[in-house]
């Protein structure tokens, strides 16, 4: 376990990247494709040469070759060795470090158990599903008890349901192992779910580093272009409904949000997470608001609308086809539906 410091790192698209990752922290590196995320991971792992310096625990490691850096790396393509079975894949790192046979077997056994893949031990990678491969690759990366774990878009090759499962499991595992981790993704919600802190990388430049909420509520220009600029509502009323649910009011808008914290100060939601309807939607009146359409702007295949609710403006983004089908004009009455799970909150104590 150790902290990582990047000082003036330059390579390919990356220009002068400075970043510090604290000990035991899970930092998510967020950015669009081609932002240089994988490049940064490869630099930290020592797999490619670079300009600048990398420090582990404040000690420079630039002269240390990749096989001496004690890093666990989960590659985007996983790179399980096709000619080894699951056991041999996991054992590989231990074998090349010349550990005794008994030690290796015990460690592999333990990892098979942690990753819940004991029944797969004799399978070859080609016989495994995406999620199973994922588990094997993670077990292999953890086998040498690395001090740093690098995960490159680890959920890319698995379906949504499996990825949800794996993410939750992984988060717990990471906290238990207390291993410094860099997690690369291009999905903000994945980042938000996993991260202690988020670093947003775009075109090789670090745009913003901070807590997930900071990034979401106060994105810089470039970051908001990428993750979207949320509608932010300041709350002037707060009422707890149940353990996980809170009713808040912002002017005429009343919303139910999920929050376990103290008094909710602000609520935010991305324009694409608000659904627009020209008729009154079915279901209870919760998180469904009536408003007036006051601006329509078409951008490629999406339509951005501004809806006036009481005295507040909400921005809504939706696919063009859907918008055209609703046959809406300026000043028409519309209903907005706010996705409960996509509403984010800032609490007073944070």
């Amino acid at each position, binding site marked *: 376990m150790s902290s990582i410091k990047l000082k003036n790192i330059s390579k390919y698209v990356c220009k002068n990247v400075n970043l510090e990752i604290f000990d035991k922290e899970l930092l998510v590196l967020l950015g669009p494709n081609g932002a240089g995320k994988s490049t940064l991971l*490869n630099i930290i*792992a020592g*797999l490619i040469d670079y300009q600048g310096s990398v420090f582990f625990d404040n000690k420079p490691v630039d002269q240390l*070759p*990749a*096989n*001496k*850096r*004690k*890093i*666990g*790396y989960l*590659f985007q*393509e996983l*790179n399980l*060795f*096709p*000619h*080894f079975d699951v056991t041999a894949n996991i054992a*590989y*790192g231990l074998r*090349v*470090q010349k550990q005794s046979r008994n030690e290796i077997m015990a460690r592999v056994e333990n990892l098979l158990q942690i990753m819940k893949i004991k029944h797969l031990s004799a399978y*070859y*990678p*080609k016989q495994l599903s995406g999620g199973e491969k994922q588990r094997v690759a993670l077990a*292999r*990366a953890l*086998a*040498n008890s690395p001090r740093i774990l690098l995960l490159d878009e680890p959920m890319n090759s698995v379906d949504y349901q499996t990825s949800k499962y794996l993410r939750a499991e992984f988060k717990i595992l990471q906290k238990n192992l207390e291993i410094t981790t860099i997690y690369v993704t291009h999905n903000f919600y994945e980042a938000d779910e996993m991260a202690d802190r988020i670093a947003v990388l775009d075109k090789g430049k670090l745009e913003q580093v901070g807590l997930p909420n900071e990034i979401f509520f106060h994105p810089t220009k470039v970051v908001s272009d990428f993750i979207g600029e949320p509608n932010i509502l300041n709350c002037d009323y707060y009422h707890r409904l149940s353990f996980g649910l809170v009713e808040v009011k912002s002017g005429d808008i009343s919303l139910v949000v999920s929050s376990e914290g103290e008094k909710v100060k602000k609520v935010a939601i991305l324009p694409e997470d608000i659904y627009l309807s020209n008729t009154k939607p079915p279901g209870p009146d919760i998180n469904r608001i009536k408003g007036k359409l006051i601006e329509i702007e078409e951008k490629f295949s999406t339509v951005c609308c501004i809806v006036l609710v009481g005295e507040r403006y909400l921005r809504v983004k939706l696919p063009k086809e859907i918008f055209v089908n609703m046959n809406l004009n300026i000043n028409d009455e519309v209903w907005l539906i706010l996705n409960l799970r996509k509403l984010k909150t800032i609490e007073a104590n944070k």
Partner: protein
Amino acid sequence: MKRYKIFKLKWEIIPIIIFLGIWEIIARINLISGHFFFPPFSAVVTEFWYLTVSGVLGPNFLSSLMRVLIGFSAGSIAGLLMGIIMGWSEVTNKAFSPIISLIYPIPALGWLPLLMLWFGIGEILPIAIIFICSFFPILYNTVTGIKNVDKNYIFAARTLGASDLKILVTIVVPLALPNIFTGLRLESGMAWRVIIAAEMVAIPTGIGALLMKAESLIRIDIIIVCLIILGVMCLSFENFFTFLEKKLTNRWR
């Protein structure tokens, strides 16, 4: 599975039997004039038996076999080693590629006059020819195989703490095996084709030499015996490597 295999073999044998039957009939009813130039299959079998018991076939076959085995083993081992080094180290590859690219296209038999003068007519000559004919193609296939191994596997092994030599031995060479085996398989058959040609031209013993002697004595039955042996040997050598490749790589490919 096993049942299926036997069944398949049965099917494969039927066209051969039909072919031999037609051959026998055509020869027997004298469709082609001159019984002499077109012996029936049964006569070929008889001749095969006669050549075997009289001790003509055995020594000739063995000397061809030994030449192929020694020349091919030496050539392929050298090609493999050199190929692994060249595939792994870019410097070596750059240093040797130009020379090898120049020598590679020369047909193995083209070396014959030169080697005859260098080594004289003896056992070294055919072995040297086979060595040359196996070395270059296997070298090429090995270099290609090693170079084609996905760099990401090497990265993965490296982050897991493996040294370069370990990576080469445990990851790169095993993953290059399919390519390497393609070379071995093709060249094992090629070695037989080349040895026969060399023996026909320059060497007084072996199946190729027997072929030429049969020609001068107008013994078509013996020629056919030799050709069949040649066909069977090419096929079995190639099949041996197909089998070995399957054995080594089928589990994971």
